[in-house]
């Protein structure tokens, strides 16, 4: 049975698209059949982060409007063969997304894949609503800042009230993904503490992704960070988050740079 996961946040710029690509690639690397779907119609980016922008012919809107078949719009990743992307349209706006059209496409995707990961647009309007509507799971991407936490709280409320599952009396499984976490700034007290964020949002923690140059470099290279530098701290954090999504029980840590030679030689005074 396919699992539909929405990556959402309310606030823009917190790392939804980066997280969608990294989690999608990490899940696909474990052999699962994964599709990442860009719901950000009009401001599409997922194709760039996935490095598929030069192969886009048809998009989600073409499929919804019946101009193309789903198989024509899906782009298979060149690095991981179990990973595909369904791009959004850049020239339309979110009004082109219809509830019936999205429902039909999601049904077809459920039949083809193990994981359907929907990259939600920022905001709480139509595009974000449609991206979350069919989800079984939600990853709420949050930065350790008050504005991001408040927006995430709003989104969690919507996940519990306006989605298909919620309307049927069920519940979406929601997980918190804390991104752009900077241990140095946290130590100086310049960021919200992890405990405070968890206390406010009160949903289980899926992972903590450290702020890293690697993430930026990966986006510009057009490769999810879990593919471009799998040993980097953010990639390891995403890979562990993906394993938790598959049900593994792993303790959440803040991954840091692996210790160099000196650190290993001098473990500290005994």
């Amino acid at each position, binding site marked *: 049975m396919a699992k539909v996961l929405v990556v959402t946040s309310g606030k823009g710029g917190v790392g939804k698209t980066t997280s969608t690509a990294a989690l999608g690639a990490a899940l696909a690397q474990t052999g699962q059949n994964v599709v990442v779907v860009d719901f950000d119609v*009009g*401001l*599409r980016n997922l194709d760039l982060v996935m490095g598929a*922008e*030069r*192969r*886009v*012919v048809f998009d989600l809107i073409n499929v919804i409007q019946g101009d193309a078949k789903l198989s024509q719009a899906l782009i298979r990743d060149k690095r991981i063969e179990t990973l595909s992307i369904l791009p959004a349209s*850049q*020239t339309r706006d979110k009004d082109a997304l219809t509830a019936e059209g999205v429902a039909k496409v999601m049904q077809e995707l459920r039949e083809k894949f193990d994981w359907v990961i929907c990259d939600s647009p920022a905001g709480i309007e139509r595009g974000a609503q449609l991206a979350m509507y069919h989800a079984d799971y939600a990853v709420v991407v949050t930065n350790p800042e008050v504005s991001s936490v408040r927006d995430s709280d709003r989104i969690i409320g919507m996940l519990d009230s306006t989605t298909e599952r919620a309307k049927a009396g069920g519940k979406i499984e929601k997980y918190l993904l804390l991104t752009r976490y900077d241990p140095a700034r946290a130590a100086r007290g310049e960021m919200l503490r992890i405990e405070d964020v968890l206390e406010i949002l009160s949903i289980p923690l899926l992972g903590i992704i450290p702020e890293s140059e690697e993430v930026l470099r990966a986006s510009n290279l057009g490769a999810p960070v879990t593919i471009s530098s799998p040993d980097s701290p953010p990639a390891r954090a995403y890979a562990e988050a993906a394993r938790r999504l598959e049900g593994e029980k792993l303790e959440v840590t803040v991954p840091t740079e692996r210790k160099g030679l000196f650190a290993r030689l001098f473990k500290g005074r005994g």
Partner: protein
Amino acid sequence: MPDELRPPPKIRARGRSFLALVLSPEPALADWLLGLDAQIARSSTFFAGKPVILDLSLLDAGTEGLAGLYPALRERGIRIIGIEGGDPSWPACAQWDWPAGFMGGRASGAVEIPEDTATATAPEAPRGSSMILEQPIRSGQTIMNPDGDIIIVGSVASGAEVTAGGSIHVYGPLRGRAIAGMNGQPDARIFAHSMQAELAAIDGYYITAEEIDPRYVQQPAQIILSNDTLVVQPLVPPTFAGRKT
């Protein structure tokens, strides 16, 4: 200020007039409906969105097929806003959803029903006027000129889409999508000062960025359709044979 002291908001209304069509069916109704169908076939959109008043004065309570007249008109997409010349108490009209009538109204003469001519003679591929644009075309913008060429003095960004019935000329980097010959013109071409198109299409045949030979990327180039295949060619300045440099 207590609520009861506040004046109620003023409601504004504006006037707008529409021309309602008055249809007067004649017996035998079956024949009249056949005539109506023939008219709709010749002018498919004539009744679309137009208010219609049904005038029953040429009929009476016993006219054959009267009961089915109202549903038959609704079925054809005719929007009836009023019925006159009849009586809701006629038994045949008992099932009708008799609309509340309108008062007043001024008669205006017979309305000529236009005939669709487009289907009779297919338009000869129109080579209309060119469209010239001198600003950069941004991501998400769509530019369309179904009748002729599009000439852009500037750049076309990734995520922009330019669609022309004729050819597309870009005097700058073409980084978006270029769709030429959209109405079935295989001789249309795509020219770019710096070819970096995400997707190029002529007469329905397309290539993506990956299929463009890297030698021609970021170079002046044209794309033509040859034997149902898009061919990218460098735009080189003419060389003069025999001329010494």
